């Protein structure tokens, strides 16, 4: 698998907050789940990848089919993104927004976009201001996938979605991955993460406390007689969930 993204000594400082990322590379077709409480730096990481903010130190190397891309604008043509809310001019209809996006992305497929809106029962003739939060998320998801991106960034994509819609989203993401799409997503819903993520980052207060393949991370823990998760030698047979890892590294209840 070719490298899609490479983080090299990345630090980002904003006021009192500093985000420090590990020197890792993300492979083409990999699904990375980012877990962390509010303020952990998940959204900042996404913004760095999207080029919305610049690094204070280090760099993020972006690749397309193994070739290093300098121009973020060019690279963005291959990215689909979903934020925790669809914030666009609220007087705009979804169909019109689709036409606008058609002019931005080379591979925009208006039919695919409208089909996905139909799948989610979202009326393309509705103005954004008339949509509920869940509907906005679904529309945002349709936009992220309509141009068959090579990389999808999802920041809390399941926020506000009902169970059925979440299941559909997970299925569509799996399909996208099978076509070689790299996916980076953050979510508080660890069952979705458990189903999708191959590798995870556990973040807290701007630091990645643990990262690696989910199975390898789980292998390093077992449970004591009280059911608490404790570090142990690798290769044990204990069934550890991502929620257990979350509790160990980040503690307490989920936000």
């Amino acid at each position, binding site marked *: 698998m070719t490298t899609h993204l490479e983080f090299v000594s990345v630090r980002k400082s*904003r006021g009192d907050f500093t985000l420090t990322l590990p020197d890792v590379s993300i492979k083409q077709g990999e699904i990375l789940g980012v877990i962390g409480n509010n303020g952990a730096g998940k959204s900042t990481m996404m*913004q760095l990848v*999207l080029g*919305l*903010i*610049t690094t204070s130190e280090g760099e993020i190397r972006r690749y397309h089919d193994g070739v290093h891309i300098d121009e973020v*604008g*060019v*690279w*963005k*043509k291959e*990215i689909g*993104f979903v*934020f925790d809310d*669809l*914030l*666009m*001019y*609220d007087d705009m209809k979804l169909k019109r927004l689709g036409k*606008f*996006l058609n*002019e*931005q*992305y080379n591979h925009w497929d208006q039919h695919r976009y409208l089909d996905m809106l139909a799948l989610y029962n979202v009326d393309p003739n509705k103005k954004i201001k008339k949509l509920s939060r869940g509907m906005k998320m679904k529309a945002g998801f349709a936009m992220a996938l309509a141009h068959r991106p090579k990389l999808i960034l999802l920041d809390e994509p399941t926020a506000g979605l009902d169970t059925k819609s979440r299941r559909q989203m997970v299925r569509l993401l799996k399909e996208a991955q099978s076509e070689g799409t790299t996916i980076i997503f953050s979510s508080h819903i660890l069952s979705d993460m458990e189903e999708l993520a191959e590798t995870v980052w556990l973040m807290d207060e701007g630091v990645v406390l643990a990262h690696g393949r989910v199975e390898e991370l789980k292998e390093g823990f077992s449970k004591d007689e009280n059911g608490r998760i404790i570090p142990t030698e690798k290769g044990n047979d204990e069934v550890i969930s991502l929620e257990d890892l979350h509790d160990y590294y980040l503690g307490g209840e989920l936000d």
Partner: protein
Amino acid sequence: MISVFKLEVWLMRSGLPLIIIIPFVLGFFSVVNNTVSPLIIVYVMVIALIQTEEKNRVNRFMYSLPLRRSEIFYARVLSLTFYGSLWLVFENVARLIIGVTIDGSYVFYLVSTFVMIMIVSTLMVSVSKTMPQGILRWIVLFVVFFLAVMSMTFVTAITSMFLEDVVGVVPLFISIITFIVGVIVFLALSIGGIAIQKRQDVV
């Protein structure tokens, strides 16, 4: 850039009839060259666009799209210049209908007003895109607008009056030079504005 320009024009679509009708009506009654009205339109439009942008919090979405920051910058400058120029065009179409004399001075007035629209638009976009949200930005926008309009109208008025006194009419080459200087100032301001904006975080 054209798609973003079309989006900006669409955003202000409700104001377009007024930008066409009011200057057209005014043009029938105005006897003096009117430089300031189209510039005020530019100011009003930039305020309206900024407020729409802030109300809808669209920056994160827009800057996540595969658009260069310079494209977003120039699209806004172009849309503001478009609004200001529409005013200028319809006001002067009406004046031509009632039989205003077209001479070198009139051409100079048209060219210098267009150049001022272009420069004021660039200055307004530069300030609005490089300063953080808040009261200070509104104050700076107003001060920059006021100083730019005052200084440019002063220079063009003095030039026009001086040449009319000496030559009788403003020669055509002065209009050409004014246009060339205007384009150079526009490019310098926009390159500077984009350079500052590129280093800034969007969210």
